[in-house]
């Protein structure tokens, strides 16, 4: 058909039709309905806004964002950035956002790992393993998350005090003050090493692509992992050593009535994390199971019949197909973890919802408070969606 379209005689585009003002014109009807619906909606919104304005005047509620610069005066137990009650509301809210991200990011990583393991366990040939995984998934998904959070929090609160803390492994303490883990004294060298690992990871990725391209040219397979190992592990170690190799372990110990040192996970954070991870892992397990099962057995057989090695089959045949099924629902689970972390407010972990809620109670500015909560979650949701869409598009290309 391409040669015909090149003919100038056919180089014509679709014309537009004039609009006929009659009820039987489809477009007139369509415009009428749209104007009607939009009109009703605008009228309702206008009415609500007018009511709100009148109510705000009558109740003498201030509006605007001026309160953000005022002193918050609210204590926040856990903060990733420096904070004291004399800081302003803006900083308090930022602490809240970071606390939300702290629980969401760690939760996503842990839930993915645990959920994947349980999903694979459900497909295990060992009857006991698959049965236990199945029961776990069924039970955990049939109980409200909030109930589970309260349950974990109650258990943590019921734990003995620091002096009788559970001490399963040396340096690990579990008490009603939370979970204490040994850590190291963090220095600039550690941050640098972490960054070097990140760079190494990206370089390995690029190196792998390059080697694959070379293999496509001359057919010779090349090993990527030695270089990868060097980049991901060797690089950071070198950076760390160059910066003086600082390493001071920070092991918690009981002194008097409380602990000193170590990394503390507060009972609130710990309960929220455990609840979110165990709950979401149940859903992720189902997604992983469905994804693996979606690749028909014939695919394995066909690939093996071609003489491909299991590793290649998994990487080139099975994973691309399974991921296509897994990624979209996984995205919504990641979004769910983030949104569900807002249940923190029920057990007193100070995430953005909790802090914004306190803010709106203190200032009385409900509209601004809720707007902040919604804006934060919408931007997080949007970022995760965009990233996962990008990733999804990428694996869709791999498949082709």
């Amino acid at each position, binding site marked *: 058909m391409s040669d015909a379209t090149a003919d100038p005689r056919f180089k014509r585009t679709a014309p537009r039709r004039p609009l006929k003002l009659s009820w039987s014109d489809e477009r007139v009807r369509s415009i009428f309905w749209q104007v009607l619906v939009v009109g009703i909606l605008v009228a309702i919104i206008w009415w609500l806004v007018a009511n709100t304005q009148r109510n705000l005047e009558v109740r003498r509620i201030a509006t605007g964002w001026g309160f953000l610069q005022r002193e918050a005066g609210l204590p926040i137990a856990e903060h990733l950035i420096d904070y004291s009650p004399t800081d302003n509301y803006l900083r308090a809210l930022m602490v809240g956002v970071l606390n939300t991200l702290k629980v969401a990011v760690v939760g996503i990583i842990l839930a993915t790992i645990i959920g994947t393991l349980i999903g694979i366990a459900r497909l295990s040939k*060992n009857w006991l393993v698959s049965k236990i995984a199945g029961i776990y998934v069924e039970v955990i*998904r*049939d109980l409200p998350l909030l109930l589970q959070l309260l349950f974990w929090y109650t258990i943590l609160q019921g734990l003995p005090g620091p002096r009788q803390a559970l001490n399963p492994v040396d340096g690990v303490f579990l008490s009603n003050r939370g979970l204490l883990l040994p850590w190291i004294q963090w220095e600039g060298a550690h941050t640098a090493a972490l960054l070097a690992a990140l760079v190494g990871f990206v370089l390995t990725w690029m190196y792998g692509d390059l080697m694959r391209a070379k293999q496509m040219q001359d057919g010779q397979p090349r090993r990527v992992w030695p270089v990868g190992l060097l980049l991901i592990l060797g690089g950071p170690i070198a950076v760390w050593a160059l910066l003086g190799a600082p390493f001071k372990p920070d092991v918690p110990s009981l002194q008097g009535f409380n602990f000193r040192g170590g990394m503390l996970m507060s009972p609130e954070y710990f309960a929220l994390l455990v609840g979110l991870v165990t709950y979401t892992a149940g859903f992720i397990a189902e997604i992983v199971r469905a994804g693996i099962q979606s690749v028909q057995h014939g695919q394995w057989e066909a690939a093996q019949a071609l003489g491909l090695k299991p590793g290649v089959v998994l990487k080139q045949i099975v994973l691309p197909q399974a991921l296509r099924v897994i990624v979209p629902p996984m995205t919504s689970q990641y979004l769910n973890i983030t949104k569900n972390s807002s249940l923190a407010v029920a057990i007193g972990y100070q995430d953005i919802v909790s802090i914004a809620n306190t803010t709106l109670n203190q200032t009385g500015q409900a509209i601004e*408070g*809720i707007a902040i909560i919604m804006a934060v979650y919408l931007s997080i949701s949007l970022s995760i969606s965009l990233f996962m869409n990008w990733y999804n598009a990428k694996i869709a290309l791999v498949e082709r």
Partner: protein
Amino acid sequence: MPSDTTLTPATIPAPPVESRRAPISVVGPVAWMRANLFSGWLSTAITLALGYLIITRLISFVDWAFINAIWSVPVNATNQPDTSACRAARGVGACWAVVTEKHRFILFGTYPFEEHWRPALACVIFVALYIVSAMRRFWRKELALIWIAALTAIGVLMWGGVLGMPFVPQERWGGLPITLILSTFGLAFAFPLAIMVALGRRSRMPAIKAICVLYVELIRGVPLISLLFMASVMFPLFLPEGMNIDKLLRAQIAIILFAGAYLAEVVRAGLQALPKGQYEAADALGLSYWNKTGFIILPQALRMVIPPLVNTFIGFFKDTSLVLIIGIFDLLTAGKTAIVEPAWQGFGVEVYITIGLIYFVFCFAMSKYSQGLETELNQHRRR
């Protein structure tokens, strides 16, 4: 191929073949265990380790929950429950006394004690309504009438004020009926809303499509809590002076709006899965938009998405517990309040296990139902 020489394999008698019974090493419990529990040294090790863990855990749980458990406590001089026995048994035995003592409060909240039969009956009607709705035999238009009748009966029972039943204001309702009301009324209103939004999202009218997309994505982008906060603190500002809607209804509206967006996406998936030919055939017959939608599109699209719809409903049933955060007295809030009393403080685990069991029974039944339906529908499709 000429048609008169078509082979008919069914009519050719197969020569009888003696089929030997499989040896005991292939079938039977021993073979089953060898294949499924001890198929290799790794599998055997895992089986043994897990088996040991399960048995020891189970024994200590049975010890705690049954053998060492305390089922009731005496009342002391000041007519307060004496929980010292429970406190002594902490960590060793469960204190189910908190449940036996407080179960009426957990189930029905602050509803007048002597009128508890009314919320109890309302719960029974709810359950009956679910069972009837789950049966295919009742998937007809009359089901809508059954729903209207049942929901009206529940309203009459809960409020009273007629038929010799004293009036009970909504502030005194609580416990399980609130959970069932929030989820059932939520579904009843969210479902039609979801269908309209799903249709709107596939509409060719750009403005209507944009509104539906905006609504769905906005609601799905924020947590339910933010909507509940909106309902509890912001909604009163929206209304003209003097007009007031009680908190339960405001939370109900928030849940409907929330559920509507999620259900709309489920319905939209069904609309998209329907072959284009069905739309075209309906158009070619000259059916109007609403006839086409009502007779051809929706019946097929909805049937396809019943399993995900049930799963979404399970999600809402659980999510109604979030009203705890804005202080509405549902089942979970009642449980949490029951252990505020000094005598019962610290026995949350027992109460939460009990409430968890109630939620589990509802959700498990629904999830088994949806799984059964899914296999049934898949078989239907394969045929």
